[in-house]
């Protein structure tokens, strides 16, 4: 079984660079780009908290898959939640993109005009503590992801909650280096941004957020 954990870790490690950066990189990067300039150690710390939350969710789902022994049954009931999370992630990114691009004059505009979902998003984003990234990671660990689905199949195949959890923990830890480095690098680039370039970055995050929303709605339609 230890070989399985090593394989899951290397799958996460390779997939992190080849898959996760493309699918979830913009999301991880947007957490770094938004807000005030921070020293690299703070940016990296926030990234690690976010990924700790994400990996915790993977491990918990892995335990459920291992307990149930069935990927199809568990994934079937998870899908609705995951699609909602994708839409929520999109909304978060739209809010962040608008803020970064300076199109809404800071987050007060969101609060004034959107007391509901965007207001909640603003409260999460604008919370002074970097610790907010952990619950954010817990939530974003529920994002629908083909690579993690494949690992969940392996977790279900273990037939044990502990083994399923350990396998997903190994897989999740493997995905951290690529995404954390990507997010931190984007934060460094973000801290150097000025004027129009910052606006461009904000618009890119905004566009990616809209992409997530459209994809989330489409996935609902396919259910």
């Amino acid at each position, binding site marked *: 079984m230890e070989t399985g954990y090593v394989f899951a870790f290397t799958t996460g490690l390779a997939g992190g660079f080849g898959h996760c950066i493309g699918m979830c990189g913009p999301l991880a990067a947007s957490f770094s780009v938004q807000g005030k300039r921070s020293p690299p150690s703070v940016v990296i710390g926030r990234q690690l908290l976010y990924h700790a939350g994400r990996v915790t969710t993977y491990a918990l789902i892995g335990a459920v898959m291992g307990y149930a022994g069935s990927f199809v049954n568990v994934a079937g009931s998870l899908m609705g939640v995951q699609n909602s999370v994708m839409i929520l992630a999109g909304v978060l990114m739209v809010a962040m993109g608008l803020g970064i691009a300076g199109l809404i004059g800071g987050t007060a505009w969101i609060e004034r005009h959107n007391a509901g979902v965007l207001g909640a998003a603003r409260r999460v984003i604008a919370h002074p503590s970097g610790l907010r990234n952990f619950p954010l990671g817990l939530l974003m660990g529920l994002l629908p992801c083909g690579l993690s689905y494949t690992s969940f199949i392996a977790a279900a195949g273990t037939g044990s909650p502990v083994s399923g959890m350990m396998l997903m923990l190994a897989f999740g830890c493997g995905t951290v280096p690529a995404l954390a480095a990507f997010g931190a690098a984007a934060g460094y680039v973000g801290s150097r941004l000025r004027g129009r370039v910052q606006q461009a970055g904000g618009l890119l995050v905004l566009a990616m957020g809209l992409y997530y929303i459209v*994809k989330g709605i489409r996935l609902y339609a396919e259910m």
Partner: protein
Amino acid sequence: MARSSRTADSFTALALVLFLFPPYALAAGKPVIKADCQISEHPCTKTTDGLTATLEITPRPVRDMRELVFTVFLSQGSKAVTDAKVAVDLTMPDMIMGQNLVRMAHKMQGIYAGKGVIVRCPSGKKLWRAEVRAHRGKKTIVVPFLFEVR
């Protein structure tokens, strides 16, 4: 001085685009890979190195996130191949999806079967590659099929 600052900003903007959207930026100009097997309509047959493999996936139409039965019939010339270790390796041509291997058991007269799941890629891509891997002695023959799920 102002010009070099503008150049630096342009490079930063370009770096940001590549950082944020690497697959979308790099996807342009890639050759388009198309399905060569209508697996939702009928079984598909291909021959590699003298080994003929017929792949069938049920229930049809083939959908992702469902439990599927993979059936492979192997033959060499007019003879059924009954002594191979067979697995079906599921990958996406355009996306790293981790190893998803369906292990097949020999049922009868060159027919091998196993259960598996084709996972969903939230990018919306539907094209999958199923490689039938037949191990006989020290030799492994790979027969690839490209198809779309619904």
